[in-house]
């Protein structure tokens, strides 16, 4: 039986593992389907992680985290947890292999996945011009024209990243101004090969056998429709939480969640179920920052120790 099972290996899961093992828990296992690091490893630049003076990529930022946790005894398995149930005081983790593992306490830190723009052609051309990872796929569009959909920090940052590789980057946003931080917007304004298309909705992604050939946009002011001739469309319109592991056989959730499926926690990262904690992007009011996810993880790790005592 595990003392503490951690589901997810991003900044929240890793930090929880670090605090729990360093704090004295022995049998702590982190379930992450591959190399730990989380969604931040797709980010092209981090310049707001405290103490990190040099601008680094997400992959660079996360490089040493797993090793640090391992030193204190955190174990990592690539088995995927499909479902968490609770029977009395004991949690059961049902794995993709069909195996069931018991745990005394559990942290759910599965994070989130990119939200689709929900427009025609998006699914059809996913991987054939439609992407949600600029650092992964920007390379395929060297010297070509691409579009970015979205207006938040991620959309603006990744548009700037793509501008270094691509000929022209269109950034299409439905509002009249970007939600991204003023610092990022200033950088965006200074980047010559980015064309800002504000007050426009993205209507459809079009293409042929070779993949994407264009993005159809519509002006919210004049209703004028035009097609941007692009080979790639990068979608950054927010994220959906990954909470499927909490869904029970009857369709209900193991613990209380809000209408967006985000797990309701208190300031100690406790959920409505004793012994079950949630941390990082999956929780309510998550600021979706590495430093916050790590902070949540530390809180949950400390909480798990207290719960088990």
């Amino acid at each position, binding site marked *: 039986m595990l003392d503490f099972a951690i589901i997810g290996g991003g900044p929240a899961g890793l930090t929880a593992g670090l605090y729990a093992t360093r704090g004295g828990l022995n049998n702590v296992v982190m379930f992450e*389907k591959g*190399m730990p690091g989380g969604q931040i490893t*797709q980010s092209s630049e981090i310049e707001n992680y405290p103490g990190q003076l040099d601008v680094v990529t*997400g992959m660079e930022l996360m490089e040493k985290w797993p090793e640090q946790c391992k030193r204190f005894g955190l174990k990592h398995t690539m088995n995927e947890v499909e479902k968490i149930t609770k029977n009395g005081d004991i949690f059961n983790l049902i794995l*993709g292999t069909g195996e069931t593992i018991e745990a005394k306490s559990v942290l759910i830190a599965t994070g989130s996945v990119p939200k689709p723009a929900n427009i025609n052609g998006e699914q059809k051309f996913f*991987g054939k011009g439609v992407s949600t990872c600029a650092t992964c*796929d920007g390379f395929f569009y060297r010297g070509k024209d691409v579009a970015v959909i979205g207006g938040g920090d991620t959309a603006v940052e990744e548009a700037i990243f793509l501008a270094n590789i691509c000929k022209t980057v269109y950034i299409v946003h439905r509002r009249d101004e970007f939600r991204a931080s003023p610092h990022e917007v200033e950088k965006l304004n200074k980047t010559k090969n980015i064309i800002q298309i504000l007050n426009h909705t993205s209507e459809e992604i079009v293409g042929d056998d070779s*993949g994407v050939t264009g993005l159809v946009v519509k002006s919210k002011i004049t209703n004028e429709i035009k097609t941007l001739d692009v080979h790639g469309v990068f979608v950054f319109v927010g994220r959906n939480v990954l909470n499927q592991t909490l869904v029970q056989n009857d369709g209900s959730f193991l613990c209380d969640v809000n209408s967006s499926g985000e797990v309701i926690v208190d300031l100690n990262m406790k959920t409505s179920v004793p012994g079950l904690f949630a941390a990082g992007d999956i929780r309510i009011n998550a600021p979706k920052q590495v430093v916050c996810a790590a902070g949540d993880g530390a809180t949950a790790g400390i909480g798990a120790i207290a719960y088990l005592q």
Partner: protein
Amino acid sequence: MGKYIELSSENFEATVNEGVSLVDFWAPWCGPCRMIAPVIEELANDFDGKANICKVNTDEQQELASKFGVRSIPTILLMKDGKVVETMIGAASKQAFADKLNSLL
């Protein structure tokens, strides 16, 4: 210990021509590719002698990437006797890859 096969335009056809193959198109700068790297290594071990577990570095093998229309990484091709049977885009669990391989064997 099984080891994955590093593919280039030179050895691609000869390697995947016979039997079941999993081909992982990746690049060093790609977070999700790095994430599944240990999964690919374990699969190479588990399917040693049963299937060809292969990797293509798209940075070095751009011709191969474009031949298979790879525009997103990781892209994982499941092949049988040289023909692409299924294309998976993005990171997935070891179990998901193993199930696909087993269904082709």
